[in-house]
């Protein structure tokens, strides 16, 4: 589904991604772990070109994302993204946050988009917040709305960039629950997270990144139960 070949990215002299090749299959739940500064967020953000890579190619559904000729907006409509800091639009109500993109990109009429938004809000238990503004919501509620907003575009893959890192501990659960439900529905997901429990439970593949490379990957059982790379062993000993 997403094919990454020889991806590199540097900020000035600093090499953040170092020749990464990876393939993400339909239905995959890929969880990327690693110490901060390892390049895992940059890797995720390069998948939808929020960080344009310096070298290498990314192909999504047969379209070369990294080609300058590609309409990147069209690609992004099929890739949902959830951010660490939610990035809800504070100047709009929740309903408008969710319906803006589907309506403006011509996918749906306002009425269709609102109907879909309400259905999605019911799924995450927040339908009574439709006319509220983001500043009136808790962090966990905001992140659940952010997930709904991304889902409203009916994406084929969802990218999560540390979705629970900015949350109070007691709100992490409600967001992970929504993500688990999404995974159970068969959504293809790429998740950067520090939640090792979630990685073990939901991920079908774990990538360990450090120094801009994928140092080890495999099933949760293999990565957590029988790590090979010394850096991974060191990392797991600190976080588990």
């Amino acid at each position, binding site marked *: 589904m997403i094919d990454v070949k020889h991806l590199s990215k540097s900020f000035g002299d600093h090499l953040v991604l170092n020749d990464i090749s990876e393939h993400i299959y339909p239905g995959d739940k890929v969880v990327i772990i690693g110490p901060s500064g390892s390049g895992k967020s940059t890797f995720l953000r390069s998948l*939808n070109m929020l960080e344009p890579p310096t070298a290498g190619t990314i192909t999504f559904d047969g379209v070369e994302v990294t080609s300058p000729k590609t309409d990147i907006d069209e690609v992004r409509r099929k890739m949902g993204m959830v*951010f660490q800091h939610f*990035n809800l639009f504070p100047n709009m109500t929740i309903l408008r946050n969710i319906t*803006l993109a589907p309506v403006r990109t011509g996918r749906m009429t306002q009425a269709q988009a609102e109907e879909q938004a309400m259905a999605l809000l019911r799924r995450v238990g927040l339908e009574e917040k439709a006319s509220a503004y983001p500043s009136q919501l808790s962090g966990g509620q905001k992140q659940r709305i952010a997930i709904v907003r*991304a889902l409203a575009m009916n994406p084929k893959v969802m990218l999560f960039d540390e979705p629970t890192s900015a949350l109070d501990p007691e709100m992490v659960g409600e967001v992970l629950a929504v993500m688990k439900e999404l995974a159970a529905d068969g959504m293809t997901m790429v998740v950067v997270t520090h939640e090792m429990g979630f990685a073990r439970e939901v991920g079908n593949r774990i990538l360990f990144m450090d120094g801009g490379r994928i140092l080890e990957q495999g099933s949760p059982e293999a990565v957590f139960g029988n790590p090979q790379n010394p850096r991974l062993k060191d990392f797991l000993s600190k976080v588990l």
Partner: protein
Amino acid sequence: MELYEAWKPLLREGTATFSQEFYVKFYQAFVEGDRWQQYLRGVGTTLLATAMALAIGIALGIIIAMIRTAHDQQRPGHHNPILALLNAVCKVYVTVIRGTPMMVQLLIMGFVIFSSSRNYTLVGALTLGINSGAYVSEIIRGGLMALDPGQAEAGRSLGLNYIDTMRFIVIPQAFKAILPSLGNEFIILLKDTSLITVIGGKELVYAAQAIYGRTYEQMFPLLGIALIYLVLVIIFSWLLGILERRLRQSDRR
């Protein structure tokens, strides 16, 4: 009217009481020969010049701010030469305008560049607009740079194009953030229209000068226009306050 005619000679003789003198001078400054109409026309010209200057200033400010932020936000290594040239032009403009006094700019525009034009108010408003544009561009640039880049990223990641992201997400938020500074700029502009007098614009100060040029009594015309400016500024500050409260609606908890 009768009182004025009766008390006027007393002033010349030097026997008038304070209240008689006050009444006569007030009458001369505002009533005699329907002079209040001159002030009224002055207010009209002042407001017209302010509106024109504001429109020019905001248009210029937006263009310059867009060019400069677009230039500054280019990815490292991807430099567009046209943008670099435009950016250099904008920088020179801002430097020259901010680095020279408004009065000097007005004199140059009025007596050198447009020396053959008789439409002094228009030349004055144009100068003020060009001047204001330099300041407004910096205000807008500040607003755009202060906004969390995650907002634009979220818009783009949903598949919205650059224009829609700016229109629905970035600009409304930036506008709310810079409204107090823009209001301040507007009030400065309103008062700075008084400088147009030096090139012959017929606004409020011109009206006052024309009147005390005939009556040789400066105090009432000058205090009068000071009061008019003050009232205008108070009214506009109040209106801006209402607008700000409206825009803050989404901040309520």
